[in-house]
């Protein structure tokens, strides 16, 4: 087996290991990446995150469900923990930034955590504010982090009412980010009513929604 073939096998093996929720295999292959001097960025993007992207597609098709996504993300993070310290810094510099949180009054964070996974897999720098986040904090963090996108999540009809207020706060922040919203009571229509820039029906489509918003912003 030549060097290229081996590199390809390890990289695709990483994708498969994430997809198969096999943390042990991820560890073995990540060690090989480092031993063989394989480009870490490629191993992450074409291996680990590719596996997570495919698992997201499977979720969208109804082949995978949240238990599988959670175990895939465990495998992803295991691999990222090993490889990220070896990533060259200039590659980090071009990352897009996402701030994400569940709004004040709400502690339901499974959806938010999965959105975090999908953005991480897509190469974004993710700042997770957790759940029950005071609305003012979104503005404060935005001023510090200067994120491209802020993701707001709510799962209750009362906490949903915090979303337009958080959006008002973020619109006044400098620089104002694009805002996507998600969670059970929300819909495309309500997102528009609240003047969000986008609505993500689930974690898997959230990255696509964000990319589309940013693309439209650039072309305007």
């Amino acid at each position, binding site marked *: 087996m030549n060097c290229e073939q081996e590199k390809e096998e390890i990289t695709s093996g990483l994708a498969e290991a994430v997809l198969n929720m096999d943390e042990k295999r991820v560890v073995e292959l990540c060690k090989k990446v480092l031993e063989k001097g394989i480009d870490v960025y490629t191993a992450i993007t074409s291996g680990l995150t590719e596996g997570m992207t495919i698992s997201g597609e499977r979720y969208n098709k109804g082949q995978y469900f949240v238990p599988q996504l959670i*175990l895939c993300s465990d495998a992803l993070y295991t691999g990222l923990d090993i490889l990220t310290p070896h990533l060259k810094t200039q590659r980090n510099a071009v990352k897009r930034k996402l701030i994400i949180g569940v709004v004040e009054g709400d*502690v339901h964070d499974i959806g938010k955590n999965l959105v975090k996974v999908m953005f991480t897999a897509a190469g974004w720098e993710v700042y997770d504010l957790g759940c029950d986040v005071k609305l003012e904090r979104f503005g404060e963090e935005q001023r510090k982090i200067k994120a491209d996108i802020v993701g707001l999540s709510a799962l209750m009809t009362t906490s949903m009412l915090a979303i337009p207020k958080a959006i008002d706060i973020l619109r006044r922040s400098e620089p104002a980010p694009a805002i996507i919203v998600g969670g059970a*009571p929300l819909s495309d229509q309500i997102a528009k009513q609240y003047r969000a820039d986008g609505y993500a029906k689930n974690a898997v489509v959230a990255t696509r929604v964000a990319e589309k918003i940013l693309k439209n912003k650039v072309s305007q």
Partner: protein
Amino acid sequence: MLFKEERMSSEQRLSSLLNRRAIDRIPFFSFSQGFATLNVGYSIADYYNNPQKSFYALKATADQYNFADFSLFGYASFGAWEFGGKISWPEGEYSQAPAIKHFPIESEDDVHKLKLPEIEHAGFIPYFIRFAELHELSSGYYTLGIEAPFVGAGNLCSVTRLCRWILKKPDIAHKLLAVMTDFKIELVRYLAKRFGTTKMIPWVGDATASNVIVSPEMFAEFAMPYTKKLHESILNLGYRHIIAHICGEQNKNYPYWATIPMGDPGIISVSQEVDLETAMKYFPNDIIMGNIPPSIIQAGTAEQVYEQTRICLQKGRKAPGGFMLAPGCELPAKAPPYNIWTIMRAINDFGWYS
């Protein structure tokens, strides 16, 4: 505008529906919780931690709007506090329900050590008892949120941990579910013994079983058998009806839910993600209840609420086992009152039986 003259009281209508007799118009189960306490000037927390206020608010709100309410008391996170976890009452502007602050189960070891709590004094149960005492002295049906074992298991260890165990340690997940089922059976047995089985209708909801979270196959293995065991026990104790709140997107679980006994008739609370006709197909002998989207009640215009209600009424009235209009899930605590009145107006326009 004037509403048509009613030929039955709310209580008569509900009683007739449960006894498969003809009724004058479609009743509305409001699914009120925090909405009711806010409506009479209390807080949302009062609904949960003050059974006296809750009892009064639910009755007063039902009277005000002419709801046909099973007075509902409970919350979806039930099960954590009772086993030694911690919850917080809803506070602040945006909270809707008690939230789990500390899960009693954090490891496999904890599962092996798990013991049933002493029913009468565990967590929220004294609040159930007080609410039941008040209702037993009053007229009308009431319903206590026993909730399904699967959602209860998630409340013990967190849904994320439960999801991991379903795939990695199914034996641990089953053990947790078995204990939670035993707990709920003990609770219902206690309530039946103390209050009888005539006025209280057990409420068994399951939000965690949504197909947004688990596959229908996972539902069949980890949720259905335990809910079935709970329902069988409830009916064996002498309860005639169960309200099953099949919460969230559970289209693919309906064939499995249909194998679970619901009572004579059972009451199937259908969420907005499931078509009422789907529910009717799987539960032809039961009362179908649903399914105005709560987000429309909260954020929609009166015209949208009216139209959604009309659609529900026109579909639901064909249910062979009977129909109650209701929101697909909890009535938003801060719903505009005019939207609630609009629901009643739509019933007046489209809900009468000839």
